[in-house]
């Protein structure tokens, strides 16, 4: 048993506190929204969705936007006041969608951190997430310039004064904001260009961000999408986005209403020297970038393919949540065109591929169990040995086996005289024939599966694939002959020990003793 893994998987310190916090709030939201629509499990997808809202509304605003210094303010006022019922709503959705994006992005960051999903092979996704913060903020800030009101004047001047601190531009760019008449259409066109270019860069970076994830959730479920659009629209009617008075470079505005989600750095720029603000932001970003190695996660060995057992069926390739399996050309002369190949730098050792492989069958106990793809740290052969020994040691008249995982409730604590508990790196590692195998052994009356709570699989797809295999909608199917009333399931967060115990208790109570079990030990 991988006890090093067991210790590693438990969060400590700030991460543990955050994890508890998220788990508690998500528990409530699970009940309110149902697990499928729980917004906290959809933060990446929601961020994408807000990006699309902002893009779509932005196109409308641009059509009616006056692209010169003289006409910009008036055109936005026209949208806001004369066309309040549509243009105004578009403008408000554009603003509030952007604000929502910052909120979901930062929660998403915190959450990936809290659940320890940023280290190991996930470093790439985390690392490429950091520039998204800069790009999002820069895109939003550049949008505030275009209104060309007093707020625009203030933040544009401050931005370029701040950028001028880097001595690469020669003539200070802030000269464009010096006094009345300094701002010309040529420079204003540059600002408009930036507000189109930065979001495009953001989109490109968002694409890179999910490049290494297979089947990333980039679209929220429709129920959540509609709910969130409705919410933003209502907010837009109640509190339409408004402009400050028009910009006047001859006068510095005194009081400005900042959108704190985007403009929080401006008070800092006012009060700290530019160099310090640079140091703070660059320092913080660098710190974020290196978090995946502070400290690095202990990585289990990558999955290993046994060429002579692999028939190239592609199931492991289809099921791996990290795109770590590729199908390569076959060279060993067997009559299949492909063979599975594992890219060890992408493999988290979750074992989901082992659960997917058609050769992962525990029957024929006399033979050594060699499967097509296996985990060197936790072989299927070990798993079978452990399961058989644990089952043989059971006593009582309602014996059950619980299969759990490293990231849900710790099932080791459930081990008792009538309960065998087996822990896997991910419940998705369990090949369906193991369920059949356990139930067809004399005396075992129930198999119980547990793992991460719904929508929240640490290994992303393990729970989903397990359910699909049992429900016979995804290969490898659980055989039809397996009596479904002897199979229990409960998905829970690590803290929900009592709820799991309760679920197992009632499962056991409902189990009818099998005729075989009455007879004795072996069938």
């Amino acid at each position: 048993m991988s006890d090093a893994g067991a210790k590693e998987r438990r969060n400590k310190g700030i991460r543990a506190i955050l994890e508890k916090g998220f788990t508690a709030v998500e528990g409530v939201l699970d009940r309110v929204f149902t697990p499928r629509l729980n917004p906290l499990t959809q933060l990446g997808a929601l961020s994408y969705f807000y990006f699309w809202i902002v893009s779509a509304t932005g196109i409308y605003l641009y059509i009616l936007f006056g692209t010169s210094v003289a006409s910009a303010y008036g055109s936005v006022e026209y949208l806001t006041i004369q066309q309040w019922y549509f243009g105004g709503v578009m403008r408000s959705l554009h603003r509030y969608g952007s604000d929502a994006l910052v909120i979901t992005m930062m929660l998403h960051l915190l959450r990936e951190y809290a659940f320890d999903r940023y280290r190991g092979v996930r470093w790439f996704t985390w690392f490429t997430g950091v520039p998204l913060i800069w790009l999002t903020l820069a895109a939003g800030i550049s949008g505030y310039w275009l209104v060309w009101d007093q707020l625009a004047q203030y933040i544009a001047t401050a931005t370029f004064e701040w950028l001028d601190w880097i001595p690469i531009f020669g003539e200070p760019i802030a000269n464009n904001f010096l006094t009345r008449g300094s701002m010309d259409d040529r420079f204003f066109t540059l600002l408009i260009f930036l507000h189109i270019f930065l979001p495009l860069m953001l989109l490109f970076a968002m694409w890179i961000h999910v490049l290494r994830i297979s089947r990333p959730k980039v679209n929220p479920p429709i129920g959540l999408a509609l709910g969130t659009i409705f919410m933003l629209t209502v907010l837009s009617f109640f509190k339409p986005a408004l402009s400050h008075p028009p910009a006047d470079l001859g006068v510095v505005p005194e009081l400005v209403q900042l959108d704190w989600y985007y403009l929080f750095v401006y008070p800092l720029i006012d009060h700290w020297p530019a160099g310090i603000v640079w140091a703070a932001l660059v320092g913080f970003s660098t710190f974020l970038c290196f978090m995946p190695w502070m400290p690095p996660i202990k990585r289990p060995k990558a999955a290993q393919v046994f060429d002579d057992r692999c028939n190239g069926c592609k199931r492991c390739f289809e099921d791996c949540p990290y795109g770590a399996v590729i199908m390569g050309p076959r060279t060993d002369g067997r009559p299949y065109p492909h063979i599975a190949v594992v890219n060890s730098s992408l493999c988290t050792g979750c074992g989901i591929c082992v659960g997917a492989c058609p050769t992962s069958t525990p029957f024929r106990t006399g033979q050594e169990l060699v499967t097509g793809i296996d985990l060197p740290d936790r072989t299927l052969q070990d798993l079978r040995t452990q399961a058989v020994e644990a089952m043989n040691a059971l006593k009582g008249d309602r014996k059950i086996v619980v299969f759990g995982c490293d990231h849900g409730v710790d099932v080791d604590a459930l081990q008792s005289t009538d309960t065998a508990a087996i822990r896997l790196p991910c419940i998705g590692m369990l090949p369906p024939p193991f369920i059949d195998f356990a139930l067809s052994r004399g005396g075992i009356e129930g198999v119980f599966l547990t793992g991460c709570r719904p929508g929240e699989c640490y290994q992303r797809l393990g729970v989903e694939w397990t359910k699909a295999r049992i429900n016979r909608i995804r290969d490898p199917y659980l055989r039809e002959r397996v009596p479904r009333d002897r199979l229990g399931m409960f998905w829970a967060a690590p803290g929900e020990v009592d709820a799991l115990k309760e679920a197992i208790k009632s499962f056991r109570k409902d189990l009818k003793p099998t005729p075989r079990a009455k007879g004795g030990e072996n069938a």
Partner: protein
Amino acid sequence: MPSPLQIVGQALAYLVFALVIGIFSTWPGYTHLQENLSVVKLSVSHIGERKGECRERETSKVAITKTSRRALMICPRERYPVRLELTLDGDVIFDREMQPTGLSSDGPSYFYKKLIIPTGPHSLRVRMRDSGKADGFDYETTEDVSLSPGQVLAIRFNDAEKTLILD
């Protein structure tokens, strides 16, 4: 179908989200500049005098490079640094010397400085030196101004008229 309790719960969750977005998108307001203050922006981009006089080349060298007439003269490209000083009601509030930019120190010296000063009447004196002389300045402008709250007074150098201007 969601139960009534779920519907209420979802409405509540959306309401909280809407409030969080709506409130902090404009509140609390931020006072960038106190009421009784005004701004002076010093913004001067100016090329200092050449560091050396142009002189004729030695004839022997001309023989080698007599491709252009320009080659008859050698003009050192390097410029003097520019010094800019601003005095407010008798107190020096800005005094800095900027080196010329450019790889061969032949570009302009740039000044950009935002100074916050009290609103009201002031006497301002700006002086600039762009030659190599050890003391004193080459340009000077003195003006009495009365600044209103938030007003921006820009100080620049007009290259055509060779004067420092306040506007």
